[in-house]
């Protein structure tokens, strides 16, 4: 940058001009954008607080965009409580291509985005960048308001391999093609039962496999962010498998065991009953766009975990949308699948408060049905003690947890995520109790359940104590020490959040509680085939001149 350069922008006048032109292309006020950009740059330098920045332009932004959802709003409201957040956020924006830049500008308010991308365009995106990525994509021509992903609670996984089996059955996979893979490991010699990793495809927002593909066969589905392989386009060069740092790809080295006819017949049988979207073919192979991306791959092309596009497209009925085979099969509910863009989705809610999620899942079997409660309570008094005494299935501890869950939850029992079914059962039970005359929000009940402090004589009862409720849940269900995304430093922006221990660089796989060979998958041709841990053992049978030696 020359000394004459008047640009406020670190990348110089030329860059500034270029972006100004881009702003002119949008429907919004370029001057406002540039002015905001200049001030936003001051924010990143610390010369202007986020709160001040927000305040200064709030009216202009409202006038121009009709809404001010700039990321500074929170800072404004919390008055710098969270100083540095905005600048950090800008740093993490990844300027990957023209489209996302434009999208960013429209969404975030042109100036802020301009600075963020220009000044820090080269920075690596971390997990913090997800809201930005989401914002960028929302502004694109192709609207993406869904990003499927998972929260996986590693401390809940008991290594039963039900998910691996369910995946093999759902997709009719060959032996050793473990799209879903569960492994135990030892880290620095420390072996605890919690050292376990559940490894589906991470469906990365910045998928390296997609980047290196010489054919576009490996692609991200625009509307929901699933990373899929078009089996009709793939040439089988295996570069995606090489580029993926997680090792989630499985090449179809030979003719698959299950024919497409068998898969289709099975699909007709199972999907035929469902009331599904007519756009989705009944074959469990083509997705709603008509591209062959689901079920096992044909010979000579690459395959990996798909996160069940046929389900997400409504091909298995409305109930199956937002679920995966592995999630459905998991006995301890360790897998939470849903929309990562939605704060109320299963994975986001669960990751936000794992103790709540665990308790909700645990308690579900113990929550008495409304009918049972009505029968039990018939004729009983309506105080807490009498109710608990009269009810066969409801004890104090269960009710305490049920109530604690409700206290820490927002929008309890609302929404279409899977966990709301559990919540709904609790709501029904509560309704039955209320109908009987027990006021669950009363001082008597809340104090009786240790979910509120008893007020002093001169104080008014101030309702439930949220932290007490949270403590109840943590004591009951436990809380993971950490959450993480796998190999975050690779810049892949994975869409799976793990709760539990992160394996270190010296972690080594050890035998798990259940051997792969001891689990059988029922496939479309009627056969029952044991799973295989190591694909090479299966493939060696076909190697020409396999002498059993290795380099």
């Amino acid at each position: 940058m020359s000394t004459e350069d008047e640009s406020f922008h670190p990348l110089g006048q030329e860059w500034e001009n270029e972006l100004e032109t881009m702003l002119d292309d949008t429907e919004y006020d370029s001057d406002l954008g540039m002015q905001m950009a200049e001030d936003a740059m001051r924010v990143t330098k610390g010369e202007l607080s986020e709160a001040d920045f927000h305040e200064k332009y709030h009216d202009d932004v409202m006038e121009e965009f009709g809404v001010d959802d700039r990321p500074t709003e929170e800072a404004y409201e919390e008055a710098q409580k969270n100083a540095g957040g905005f600048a950090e956020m800008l740093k993490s924006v990844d300027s990957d291509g023209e489209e996302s830049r434009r999208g960013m500008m429209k969404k975030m308010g042109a100036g802020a985005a301009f600075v963020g991308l220009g000044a820090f365009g080269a920075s690596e995106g971390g997990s913090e960048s997800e809201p930005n990525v989401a914002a960028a994509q929302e502004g694109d021509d192709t609207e993406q308001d869904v990003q499927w992903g998972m929260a996986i609670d590693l401390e809940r996984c008991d290594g039963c391999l039900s998910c691996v089996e369910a995946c093999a059955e759902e997709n009719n996979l060959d032996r050793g093609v473990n799209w879903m893979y569960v492994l135990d490991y030892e880290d620095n010699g420390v072996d605890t039962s919690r050292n376990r990793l559940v490894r589906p495809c991470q469906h990365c927002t910045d998928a390296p496999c997609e980047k290196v593909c010489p054919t576009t066969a490996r692609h991200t589905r625009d509307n929901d962010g699933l990373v899929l392989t078009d089996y009709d386009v793939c040439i089988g060069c295996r570069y995606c498998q090489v580029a993926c740092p997680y090792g989630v790809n499985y090449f179809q080295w030979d003719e698959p065991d299950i024919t497409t006819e068998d898969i289709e017949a099975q699909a007709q049988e199972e999907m035929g009953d469902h009331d599904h979207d007519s756009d989705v073919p009944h074959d469990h192979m083509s997705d709603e766009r008509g591209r062959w991306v689901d079920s096992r791959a044909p010979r000579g092309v690459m395959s990996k975990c798909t996160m069940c596009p046929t389900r997400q497209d409504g091909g298995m009925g409305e109930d199956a949308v937002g679920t995966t085979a592995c999630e459905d099969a998991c006995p301890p509910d360790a897998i939470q699948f849903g929309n990562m863009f939605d704060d109320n989705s299963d994975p986001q809610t669960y990751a936000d408060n794992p103790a709540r999620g665990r308790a909700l899942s645990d308690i579900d079997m113990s929550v008495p049905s409304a009918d049972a409660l009505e029968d039990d309570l018939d004729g009983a008094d309506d105080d807490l003690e009498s109710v608990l005494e009269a009810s066969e299935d409801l004890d104090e501890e269960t009710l305490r947890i049920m109530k604690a869950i409700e206290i820490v939850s927002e929008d309890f029992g609302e929404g279409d995520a899977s966990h709301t079914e559990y919540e709904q059962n609790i709501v029904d039970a509560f309704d039955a109790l209320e109908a009987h005359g027990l006021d669950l929000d009363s001082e008597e009940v809340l104090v009786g359940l240790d979910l509120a402090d008893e007020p002093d004589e001169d104080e008014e009862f101030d309702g439930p104590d949220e932290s007490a409720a949270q403590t109840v849940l943590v004591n009951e269900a436990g809380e993971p020490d950490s959450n993480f995304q796998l190999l975050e430093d690779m810049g892949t922006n994975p869409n799976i959040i793990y709760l539990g221990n992160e394996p270190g660089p010296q972690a080594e796989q050890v035998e798990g509680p259940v051997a792969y060979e001891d689990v059988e998958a029922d496939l479309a041709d009627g056969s029952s085939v044991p799973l295989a841990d190591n694909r090479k053992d299966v493939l060696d049978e076909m190697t020409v001149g396999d002498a059993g030696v290795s380099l």
Partner: protein
Amino acid sequence: MSTKTPSEDDILRPMHTFTKKYVLLFAIAALALGAFLVGWMYQLQQGMAVTGLSDWGSGGGVTWGLYIGAFIWWVGIAHGGIILSAAVRLLGMDRYMPVARLAEMLTLAGLSAAGFYILVHMGRPDRMVTSVIGHYHITVNNSPLVWDVTVITAYFVLTATYLGLTLRYDIARLRDDLPSFSPNVGGKQLPDLLAPVYDVLTLGYTKAEDKVIDRMVWWVALAIIIMAPLLLHGGVIPWLFAVLPNYPSWFGGIQGPQFLTIALTSAISGVILLSYAFRRAYDWDHIITDDIFRGLLLWLGFFCLLFLWLQLQQLATGSFHSTTTHSYATASKLSHPMYVGPMLMVLGVLVYIFAQTIRPSLFSKGRAIAAGLLVLTATLVEKTYFVLSGFWYPSFNIYDGSPGEYFPSVIELLSIAGTIGMVTLFFLVLSKLVPVVELHAVEHLRGDHGHGHEHDHEPVEESAEQPEVEA
């Protein structure tokens, strides 16, 4: 130099002889290629499971193996054409003119073998056109594999153009002595089938174009020489690996220069072997002289030095205080015979070459051949190890199946013999059709600038195209 005077007859000799040895070599080469083609057909029929490959990670194997190692090796050998063209066309080192065309042909043959490996390696080679070309405008922005295909194709086209242009001069002058082929099929005498080939090659030729062609050739040579080292083995081929942070033994900027030095050592070795074979077969002692071998050997020594020096850089940075996974990868290098062996072989060649420079009596053609063979073996093994080591020591090395097991299957091993056979056949056929030594070289050795007249043998520094070089 020999006492014999090089003549047109010398360079026409391959086209005018037909020996039992030729037939035998042809048969062996064809058998090797044929055997591999059968293996490949079986692979196409059964799937890639016939190889020793598997999925890396939980799959317990390696995704890429000997096919990719050999692919890199052949592209490396194909660099022979660049070095010799650079030496002769751009730097005026006319000493190497007699082997320049052989080297350029080796480029075409090597690239063909490499291209063949890309097909052999793919699960669905039938989709090469529809899937790759059809999405080229999108994928060329991202995929290093597409960059590879692009640069290899460009290199092939440029080299073929270059060869085609320089052949016009020779064919136009030697036309009457070039072979004809008019078979009698079912009692019917067919016209000369080769005539159209030569006609096309010399289409519209006049002597007036010689100077223009010389200038064109100079520019094409310059383009190739800029492109090939910087973009091919110093660029896109190493970038297939070097841009992937998940493999410590691959990742990093040194792979460009490292690949280039490996390519140049194998390329020079290839030219040494090829030149020796032709000299022996056609009594070309006076054309491909001992002096050429000494010079090539010296270049080989220089590139071996660079090769080892860059390996040393990697060993130092990989073992001093590297990350956990990087140190695993480096520890493997220091102990694995597929790495240590090639390094010692190259070191041995280096020591020999420097020794014979100090003491010329140590030179012999046999030893030069041995040096070439050693280096070619070392580079093939090292490149294969390089590919495998990435999968053996990935950053995410938690899997029990990692490092994976691998031993090339019979079909994979046959591919080496098959592609060597293919390249041999390429030369056996080509040498029967066109002169593999430039007419210019003969003229230069003779010291004349005209055509077809015997002159007294005298060394001349200036060649006919010299002024164009400076243009």
